[in-house]
């Protein structure tokens, strides 16, 4: 059984206007997204800014209200649960936040930050708590002497490790990583990513990895879902998507990855031109008359694309 099964998830935000602040229209931030996560895998959600990938993650963990659809975690629907029932599942789903500067409370020291989930879910004596925090701090590669320091005394990468330590404290099953490295500089990005892969093996974690960085996604993810305007464009294994992109939008996205080899530079430029031309001429066949994506159609056991029924 899959660990997380998202079925036709919708998150709409009402636009209010007029004299009585009545609902005029909806922003369809997430509009019918479905995917599954197997235990132990890393699933990447990619897309440009504003495509709804972060909203999807936040809706799964409960920070945004779900308008429609199901979020099945171990077969139980989180979307229709009330806050009290939800709390039982809270400890199995944790989140790593994008901005390591605002996601740690500057008024609390590291011990209090990392021990917060423990204090909510487990009754431990201060001694046990301290030793668990120290073990975790060591595990994420920070000096155990730093537990009484405050967040502003750490660098961005170290802060992100503190954020990861906090998320790991309850031994969760699923971690939603919302652009965990995009606020870090590139040398630290690799460190944090490798570290995340390491702990994935050790703790048996499943990642839902949200990012706009195609390089990062390729490095870390087993399967990828590409989002655009709140819907899935293409879904498949990393190889499917990177080597054999089917949808016009995916092709554009992949072709935008900078080419390292100078010899292939012109080849790439030609390819971009081709895709751009295709984008102009074939646009209508990939989007329906409202400019909305079609539903995903499987083209191989692992690969599905949002194309019209009966081919292009």
């Amino acid at each position: 059984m899959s660990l997380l099964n998202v079925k036709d998830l919708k998150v709409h935000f009402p636009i209010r206007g007029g004299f009585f602040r009545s609902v005029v229209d909806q922003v369809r931030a997430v509009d019918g997204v479905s995917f599954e996560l197997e235990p132990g895998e890393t699933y990447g959600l990619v897309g440009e800014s504003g495509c709804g990938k972060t909203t999807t993650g936040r809706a799964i963990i409960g920070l945004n209200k779900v308008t429609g659809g199901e979020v099945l975690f171990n077969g139980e629907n989180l979307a229709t649960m009330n806050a009290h029932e939800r709390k039982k599942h809270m400890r199995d789903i944790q989140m790593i936040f994008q901005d390591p500067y605002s996601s740690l409370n500057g008024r609390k020291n590291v011990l209090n930050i990392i021990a917060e989930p423990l204090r909510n879910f487990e009754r431990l004596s201060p001694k046990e708590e301290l030793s668990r925090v120290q073990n975790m701090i060591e595990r994420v590669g920070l000096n155990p002497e730093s537990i009484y320091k405050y967040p502003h005394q750490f660098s961005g990468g170290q802060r992100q490790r503190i954020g990861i330590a906090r998320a790991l404290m309850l031994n969760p099953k699923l971690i939603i990583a919302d652009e965990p490295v995009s606020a870090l500089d590139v040398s630290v990005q690799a460190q944090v990513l490798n570290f995340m892969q390491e702990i994935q093996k050790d703790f048996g974690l499943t990642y839902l990895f949200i990012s706009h960085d195609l390089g990062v996604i390729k490095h870390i993810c087993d399967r990828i879902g590409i989002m655009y305007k709140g819907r899935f464009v293409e879904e498949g294994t990393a190889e499917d998507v990177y080597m054999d992109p089917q949808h016009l939008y995916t092709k554009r996205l992949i072709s935008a990855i900078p080419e390292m080899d100078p010899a292939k530079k012109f080849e790439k430029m030609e390819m971009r031109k081709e895709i751009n031309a295709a984008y102009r001429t074939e646009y209508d066949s990939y989007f329906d008359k409202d400019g909305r994506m079609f539903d995903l159609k499987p083209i191989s056991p692992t690969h599905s694309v949002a194309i019209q029924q009966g081919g292009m």
Partner: protein
Amino acid sequence: MVTIDDKKLIADEKVNNPSFAKTIWREIKHDKMALISLVLLLALLITAYSSPLFIDQEQLQRVNFLETWEAPSSEHLLGTDDGGRDVFGQLLIGTRNSFTIGLSVTLIAGLFGLTVGLISGFFGGWVDNVIMRIIDFLMVLPNLMFIIVFVVIVPNYSIFSFVLIMSAFAWFGKARLIRSKGLAERELDYINASKTLGTPNWKIMFFEMFPNLSSLVIVNMTLSLAGNIGLETGLTFLGFGLPASTPSLGTLIAFATNPDIVQNKSWVWLPAALLILVMMLCINYIGQAVKRASDARQRLA
């Protein structure tokens, strides 16, 4: 596992991360005006609050018609009033009463405003809307008139009920201030993180959000303390504050409604008026220093 000397570590970090109280103290030390104000205010308050040790309150309030309107002398340092009561003693007891009232009004109103503001700012949405509309309504009411009406209709009111009545009208501004900062704070990820970690809402409000707003609260409370002492004195001056049997700075100043006393018997009202002026200025200077301490860009130290 590494063994660590916890106490030493905690001590080290205390040096690196001075608490807000320490920052305030450093700021005051670097601002001569604030330092003088603090010393002066503390001296005044210590004298006023220790006055029951050397002043017999009952004797102070005993009316003695043989000694009315006596000018300052060695027996009565600041003379006597219309009942032959010692003005100097009344001044001390009055300062104590006025300051106690001002402080408790500030604390009660601060606590209430803080709670309402935090709830409003943390939840936002329709909760915020309802609370803010109620506060909007309360703010347009003429506060002073309402306090006066309350004082008139409440039978045999005491210092305690007077404090409650004043506090009931002093918390709106604070609630607004906290709410506006809270609304900005709730969008930050550390609040979201606490939510996903399963921390209950009230805990997030008071233990996550509040510490980040505390400097604002302290600054606002310090500055409004002076105002509240002034308000108490003003009401008593108008005759709607404390009963005449309870000495306060206001009851002494209230003598100045009579032109004869203003001109010829200034020892009755002038010391109290000066004391209020000095006290308010002191609190204000200290408040300014606290305000600067809360903002790293404005600090002098």
